[in-house]
Structure formats: structure tokens, C-alpha cells
């Protein structure tokens, strides 16, 4: 079990076991498993801004939407370029989704992150809404109807042995989850990532120690937006359909809950709460009949936000990890 000491491996094992459960059962469960990964990426990436850098974004759904629509447009309106079929094509498209979302992150972050205070929350909230309104009014992007028939991951034929498109989807999702985890994890073990932490801890002291806090905040925000875009790309492939209604404020709140519930600045915490956030709505779905169609989930989430802040302000995990070794030895373990 020594390998489990490494949080990367531990997280992977958890996720793979969870996925294996999905393999055995029906397509409904399969989709939930895929969404566990989409949510994990959303949560981990938002954690970089809200948890590690101490800023507060409320518009994560906007960046997910940018990524999802990029993938939707590229895969439905443009032909697959010659000699670029299969997984490499999908990876390239999702990379494009991430880059576009990252660019949006830069544009949104620049005016708001120069300032201290809560402006980022308001600007990102506004951004999320603007994206949704613009999508509604863009005929090329399908308006309120959105874009359908987005291709799923392809089946892969390995000399007679056909890997189903669920498996390739799963591998694709695992691939990006691992990349997201790895990038954030490695960054935080470097001087660049420590800058993010110092911004969270004390901006004035960080500046006095020679750290360009605005630059650090924008970097964190762009990386976070990039992975939100990736999550969007996965979303588009897995549901085959995107519309403005998919990327509401509630999706941003989902991401916020994952960060706050798990503990701002804990990867394990975020992954755990990603699991809760993915499964809970499915459990609560049956209750909708009794509440006149009102989503009880949001009442639970909102109460959870308030109670966590008052009773356990650092979240369930605080900034601790399930495997504590890696943060303790920042620097020395390399």
C-alpha cells in the first residue's frame, strides 16, 4: 500500500475503482461516472483560484461554456482534417477549447485582478451571465437551442478487439483529470505555485517580498480557466449536446461548493466533494416530485455554504491532504 502514500496514485485508484463500477452497469451510471471526472476537473481548476490563490471566481461555468462550444463548433461545423483522425484529433480539439477558455480568462482577469477585494466575484459572475446571454443570441451557435450531434469519443479497433466508446471516453476523461491534477500539483511544489499561496496568505507581504501579485493572480486564473475549458470539451463530447441552459450560474455554484466543502486548498477535499456533487443530485432527483419541481439541491448547498463558513471555515479537509507527505516536504522532496 506504499504507493497509496502518493496522493496522485491514491486519487487515481479511487477514480478507477469508481469507473470500474460504472463499467459493469448501465449507461445512466456510465454517464455519471464520466461526469465525476468532468466535475473533478472543474473543482480542481477552480480550487487553484479560490483555494490556493485566495481569490474568488463565481463564473466558472462561463469558461466551461467557452470550452464546450469551441468543441461543439469544431466537431460539427468543420470537417476532420486529413490524416488527423481518432484520439489525437479529439485531444487537439480539447486543447483548443482549453486555450480559448484560457484566453477568455486573461481578458476577464486582467481588469478585476489588479484590484484588491471582491471585484473578481462580481466580474466573473457578470461574465458568466454575459456568455450565456450572448450564446442565446448567436444564431451561428444555435441560439437558445444550442448545438447537437456533437460526436462521442470514437471506438477504437485494436486488431479485432474493439474498445467501446465508453472506454475511450473514460480514458479521455482520466487523461485530462490526471493532467489537471498533475499540473496543479507540480506547480504548487514550485516557486511559481508558492507565489499563488503567498497571495492567498498576505498580498501586502507577498509584494514586499518581490512577488508580482497581480501577475500571480492572473496566471492562476488563466490556468484555472484553461482547465475549465477542458472540462467543457469533455462535457460536449459526453452529452453530445450543448446549449446556453447547460451552463448556468448553478454550474458555477457546483464548482464553488466543491472547493468550499472539500476545503479551500486541498486536492483530496475537492475530489471527495466532486464525488458528492456528482452523486447527490441523482439521489435528490426523486424528491423533486414532492417539492413542486424545485431543486432541493440548491437549498442544501446554500445551507452547507453558510454552515461550513460559520462552523468549519476551512472546509472538511482544510488545506490538509489525505496523504499528508507531499505538502510538508515542499521543496525538500525533489
Amino acid at each position, binding site marked *: 500500500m506504499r504507493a497509496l502514500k502518493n496522493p496522485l496514485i491514491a486519487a487515481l485508484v479511487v477514480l478507477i475503482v469508481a469507473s470500474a463500477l460504472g463499467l459493469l452497469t448501465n449507461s445512466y451510471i456510465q454517464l455519471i461516472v464520466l461526469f465525476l471526472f468532468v466535475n473533478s476537473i472543474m473543482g480542481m481548476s477552480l480550487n487553484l483560484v479560490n483555494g490556493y490563490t485566495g481569490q474568488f471566481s463565481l463564473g466558472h461555468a462561463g469558461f466551461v461554456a467557452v470550452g464546450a462550444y469551441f468543441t461543439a463548433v469544431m466537431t460539427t461545423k468543420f470537417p476532420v482534417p486529413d490524416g488527423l483522425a481518432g484520439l489525437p484529433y479529439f485531444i487537439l480539439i480539447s486543447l483548443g477549447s482549453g486555450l480559448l477558455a484560457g484566453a477568455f480568462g486573461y481578458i476577464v482577469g486582467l481588469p478585476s485582478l489588479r484590484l484588491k477585494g471582491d471585484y473578481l466575484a462580481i466580474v466573473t459572475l457578470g461574465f458568466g451571465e454575459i456568455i450565456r446571454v*450572448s450564446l442565446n443570441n448567436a444564431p451561428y451557435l444555435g441560439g437558445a437551442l444550442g448545438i447537437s450531434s456533437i460526436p462521442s469519443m470514437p471506438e477504437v479497433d485494436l486488431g479485432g478487439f474493439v474498445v467501446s466508446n465508453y472506454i475511450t471516453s473514460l480514458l479521455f476523461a482520466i487523461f485530462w483529470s490526471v493532467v489537471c491534477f498533475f499540473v496543479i500539483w507540480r506547480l504548487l511544489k514550485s516557486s511559481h505555485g508558492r507565489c499563488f499561496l503567498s497571495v492567498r496568505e498576505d498580498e501586502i507581504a507577498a509584494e514586499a517580498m518581490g512577488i508580482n501579485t497581480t501577475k500571480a493572480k492572473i496566471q492562476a486564473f488563466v490556468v484555472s480557466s484553461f482547465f475549465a475549458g477542458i472540462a467543457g470539451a469533455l462535457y460536449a463530447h459526453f452529452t453530445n449536446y450543448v446549449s446556453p441552459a447547460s451552463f448556468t450560474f448553478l454550474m458555477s455554484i457546483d464548482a464553488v461548493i466543491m472547493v468550499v466543502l472539500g476545503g479551500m486548498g486541498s486536492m483530496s477535499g475537492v475530489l471527495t466533494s466532486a464525488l458528492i456533487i456528482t452523486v447527490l443530485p441523482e439521489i435528490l432527483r426523486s424528491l423533486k416530485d414532492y417539492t413542486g419541481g424545485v431543486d432541493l439541491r440548491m437549498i442544501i448547498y446554500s445551507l452547507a455554504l453558510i454552515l461550513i463558513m460559520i462552523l468549519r*471555515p476551512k472546509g472538511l479537509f482544510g488545506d490538509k491532504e489525505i496523504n499528508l507527505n507531499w505538502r510538508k516536504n515542499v521543496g525538500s522532496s525533489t
Partner: protein
Amino acid sequence: MEELLQHLINGLSLGSIYALIALGYTMVYGILQMINFAHSEVYMMGAFFAYYTAKYLNLSSSPGFGSLAIVLVVTMVLCSLLGLAIEKFAYRPLRKAPKLNVLITAIGVSLFLQYFAQLVFGADPKVFPTLIEEQTLFTIAGAPIKSFDVTILVVSLVSMGVLHFLVYHTKLGKAMRAVSHNASVASILGINVSRVIAYTFIIGSSLAGIGAILVGIKYQKIEPMMGTMIGLKAFVAAVLGGIGSIAGAVTGGLILGISEILVVVYGSSQYRDALAFLILIFILLVKPAGMFGKNRIEKV
């Protein structure tokens, strides 16, 4: 010409509603340095308080200033109680906590009220009862002046007048300004900071309640999600004017209201909601302190 005049009046009444709500944001920000995300939900709840008050007292059968006054008073009291409760149970325990935690709590309260309202009042829009009959009172340069707009302008002007008196000519106002300037010094000087904060919430929430009734009168439709957009815009108005500044909130509200109507009329209604955010981003880039705001200097 008459058309333009009419649009200006329209913009003015929309703007004064923004201003009323913006005042709540700006006053709380001035005193606690926090964005009270739940303010827009106090406004929304105000609309429902007014709706049920009018319904149970059967006031829509006798529209007029008497009915309006009753609804205004009841709504202001209920909104104040709600505002006080939010402050006491959600914000006060976090007075010393990091700003981020307070912000998250505020968002939590806001969401809770939105969905709680859906659960209790139903998610569907409701028709606001008639408190003022729609009629053309008189015409200026050919432009008909509607009773709604006159009501809105009169009520907002009176509210702002009372607020101005409260803040600049009473002991409470002096205490509020002192706390806003420097809370710790104010408390050393014997000002009961908690009481001042409570009064700030009472005033801000009452104004939100008034705003809600005016919106109900003008647009006749209320629903649990009505607070989100208008709250955001009012906040933008507060930032535009300079957050923490009372004159700024009013000016910002009016500018936003008028320019929004002009965009709808001469541009496209689709850009209506985008306008506020473009203004916000522009202000943050060019003059983050807003028109009337001063740059706060953080104590080191």
C-alpha cells in the same frame, strides 16, 4: 423630441430604482467592506412581502396612495427584519473571519433565499397587484407622463431625502459615517459599532423593499429569481458611483438606468444586460474608485 423625453423619464425611473438598491450595497460596503450578496434577495423577498400584504388586505380593490403607503410600511418593516436576521445569524458570527469567508456566506444566504422563495412561493412569476392605477397624468412637450413614473420618482426622491437627512443630520448618521471611516477608532470613541451595523442593514433593507414595490408597480411581474440581475446592476451602479459613497450610488443608478434605456431604444435590447458589465469592466480598468469614491488605503 417627445420620444426622447419619454425615454429619459423611463430611464430616470429605472435609474432611481437601481439607485435605491445600490444604496443598500454601498452602505453595507462602507461599513463592513463586504459585498452583501444577499441584498438582492432582500429586494426579491420585499416584492413578495408586498404582494402578500396587498393580497390579504385586498388593497388592489382600492388603489391609491393610501394603499401604497400601507404596503410600503409593512414591506419596509418585514425587509428590515429579514436584513437584521441575515446580519445577526450569518454575518455577525464572521465579523473577524477572513473576507473570503464572509463573501461565501453572503452567496450562501443569497442562494438559500432564492430557492427557499421558490419552494414557498412557487417558481412561477406572479402578477403584482395594482396599487396605483395606470393613467397619463399630464404631458410635457407632447410626452405623456404616466402615473407609474411619477410615483416612482416621488417615492424614490422622498426616500433619498429621508436617507440624506438620516446620514447627515442625525446622531445615528454621524455614527455611521464614523464607523465607515474607521470602525476601530469609532468603537474606542464609544460608538456601538454593532448597533450602527444593525441600523445600516435596516436602512439598506428598507430601501430594497421600496425598490421592490416600485418595480412591482412598473413591471407588474415578480418571481423568486428577480433579484439576481437587478442586484448585479445595482451593484455596478454602486461601483460606478464609487462604492461606499451615497451620492455615488444615486448618480451611478441614474446613469445606468438612463443609458440602459437609451441602449434598448437606439441599439438593441439584447445588449441591455451586457451594458452594465461593460461599464463595470471599464470602470475597474480606468477608475476603480468610481466617480465619487476615494481610494481606500489599507492599513499596514
